[in-house]
């Protein structure tokens, strides 16, 4: 690339302090500044577009029930703060149980899918074996299948096996949904740790297991934690399978969904708040790994 610039003969260029060049520089600077301003303006507009609805629902979740019912609403930052809606929501029937169910399902899903996916991810990252590409393709295909296709037969199967309407069966299904992503992310995390490091450890007398334990593990742990958080959020959010597979032991999204038609707005807004909180927290920790996760797929 640099060759192309040297091919222009330097003698044909006007001197750097000539009026044309100075003018050109000023123009470029101005254009640059305008571009910057435009970029900042877009960034702020987009940020507002994303933040304002969140802020509105959050303030609805922490206000009085009268405010929720009132019209017109005060302008944004001035909605009176109160824990009334939240208390009402938490005291509604089934809410605490469903919160607990959601946590159990998400944690079981996280543990199960991580335990199963980490060895598989390691294998894909470290070994070249016949069938490796096929395995990757199969994993990708699983992720591409629509959840709705899977939920109905699983419900029927669990019904036959007597596992219907339990948090465990839902966790089994969520694990199947989350595992492909986890495998791909974990394998990209392992791939980012050069194998030479492991070898170096072994040169200095560590057993393969020791070099894995003391060299690789600390390096991959943050990435695996991030994919775990992602799994947690996925399970926490999942509403279709949860509504199909549970009846009495609803998770939070399933409870909120099935009571949408006959619950007051305050209930919905507070429920929406609880549905959003984990993702807002976890997104903060996983944002660095997002490109790891999704950069993968386009390769």
């Amino acid at each position, binding site marked *: *690339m640099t060759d192309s610039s040297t091919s222009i003969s330097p003698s044909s260029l006007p001197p750097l302090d000539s009026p044309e060049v100075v003018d050109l520089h000023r123009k470029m600077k101005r254009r640059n500044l305008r571009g910057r301003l435009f*970029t900042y303006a877009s*960034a702020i507009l*987009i*940020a507002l*577009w*994303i*933040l304002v*609805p969140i802020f*509105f*629902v959050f303030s609805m979740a922490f206000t009085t029930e009268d405010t929720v019912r009132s*019209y*017109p*609403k005060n*302008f944004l930052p001035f909605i009176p703060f109160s824990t009334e809606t939240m208390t009402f929501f938490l005291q509604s029937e089934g809410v605490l149980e469903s919160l607990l169910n959601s946590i159990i399902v998400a944690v079981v899903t996280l543990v199960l899918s991580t335990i199963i*996916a980490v*060895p*598989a991810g*390691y*294998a*894909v990252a470290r070994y070249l074996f016949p069938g*490796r590409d096929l*395995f990757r393709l199969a*994993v990708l295909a699983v992720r*591409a*299948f*629509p*959840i709705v*296709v*899977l*939920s*109905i*037969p*699983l419900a*029927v*199967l669990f019904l036959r096996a007597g596992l219907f309407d339990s948090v465990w069966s839902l966790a089994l*299904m969520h694990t199947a949904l989350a*595992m492909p992503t986890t*495998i791909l992310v974990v394998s990209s995390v392992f791939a980012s740790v050069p194998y030479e490091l492991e070898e170096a450890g072994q040169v200095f007398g560590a057993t393969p297991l020791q070099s894995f334990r003391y060299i690789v593990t600390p390096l991959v742990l943050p990435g695996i934690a991030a994919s775990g958080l992602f799994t947690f959020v996925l399970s926490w*959010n999942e*509403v*279709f399978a949860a509504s*199909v597979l549970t009846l009495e032991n609803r998770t939070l999204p399933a409870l*909120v*969904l099935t009571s*949408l038609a006959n619950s007051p707005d305050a209930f919905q*807004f507070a*429920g*929406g708040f609880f*549905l*959003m909180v*984990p*993702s*807002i927290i976890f997104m*903060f920790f996983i*944002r660095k790994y*997002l*490109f790891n996760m*999704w950069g993968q797929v*386009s390769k």
Partner: protein
Amino acid sequence: MPYLLIAPALIYLAMFFAYPMFQGLMLAIFDDDAALVLVDEPSLDGQEVERLTQGTRLNILGRQGNLLTDDSEGTELLTEQWFLVVGESAGGAEVSGWAPEARVRIRDEAADGTPLGGTIRPRLGAGSDEATPLLAEPNETSETVAELEQRAPVTIEEIAVLEVWFQVQASEDSSKVAGWAPSRFVEVFDDEETGRVDEGSVGEFTTGFITKMFNDSFFSDAWQTTLLLMLLILPLQFVLAMLMALVIDARLKLGSGFLYIFTLPMGMSDLAVGILFFSIFTGNGLLNSVLEAIGILDGPKTFLSADTIPWIIFAIVLAELWRATSIVMVIIVSGLQAIPRETLEAAELFGAGYWQRVRHIMLPLLLPSIQVALILRTILAFQVFAVVIALSGGDIVTVLANETYRQYFEFRNNNVASAYALFILLLSMASAFFYLRAVRAQTEVANT
């Protein structure tokens, strides 16, 4: 070694993904109890003589008990019991043989109700003096081995439970042959002489469920809305995602803060986003308040009702744009990062302006990423569900995933629900295939 490591994942996916997926798709095209097989004799070894579809009207020609098979637990059965009895014959010899429960009056029972002994019932009416035959096997067709006088005391050695079999013939179709079938598949009407096939004994492949889905009154609404939403959302989404990606790629100060905000919706459930936009569009929501405050409206306008379907569609489009653009952005940003800086610098050096660089360098190089994002987004667009329910209640505006849910949940029709799921799957695969072809064709054009 690597196979050992991937084995758990493979086994798990086979158990909880491949197998149920297969089962589910079978549900859509296979009717578990489509037909009742009639056999030539009342026995499990009987030869098939006829098949009757579910619901066929029957004449009941005969009935007979038959030994139970093991798999019949839990089904509603017409049964009769036979006893292996030991008693003293008229000649004074001890004889034993099988007799149906109707021939023995129980007089002695164990604590749990198991009959232990009794007497032979006297027959009423004509032939009342006849002796009761004892048979070699618990089956009316087996040979008589002994006879017992009426009121002879007997002890019960063994009990056999028999299922009643019916000899039936289709009453409205004379071309069908008569044959035997277990009573559990037959519903007998009050007159005891007619009935109907209640459930089939064998499955058959059928297009019935798929036809039923196509004829479902919500079907055309559902797929049209799904398609309309896709056509409205996807182009806007890709423009917005491109813009967001360029902003992130510009590496502003506070860039990581913007990245965090831009990716916030990625982790949010579609239900939460549905509620979010419900709070904006509902009667006393944010939108009305703002519009009235700036003087566009005089009073609250109803956006989310059966009379304002375009507004509901608009709200769904906004909600989906809000929710799902981040993922497209992330894919595009990782595509942008893979573009060598030198290429862009070279273009700049040759005088290409910013938009020219975007149009002629970035976009073509981003095609693979855009393809992936398109496939992903289209597949997800077929699954739009909770947003629609939250904004429309699931009745006024409906989509395919919502109908799947409704068939399963409200109408309890697993088969039609699976037919919907199959339809969604086929659409997803078809669109993925289409994009793969289209983008490949375009890259070929670009290369020539």
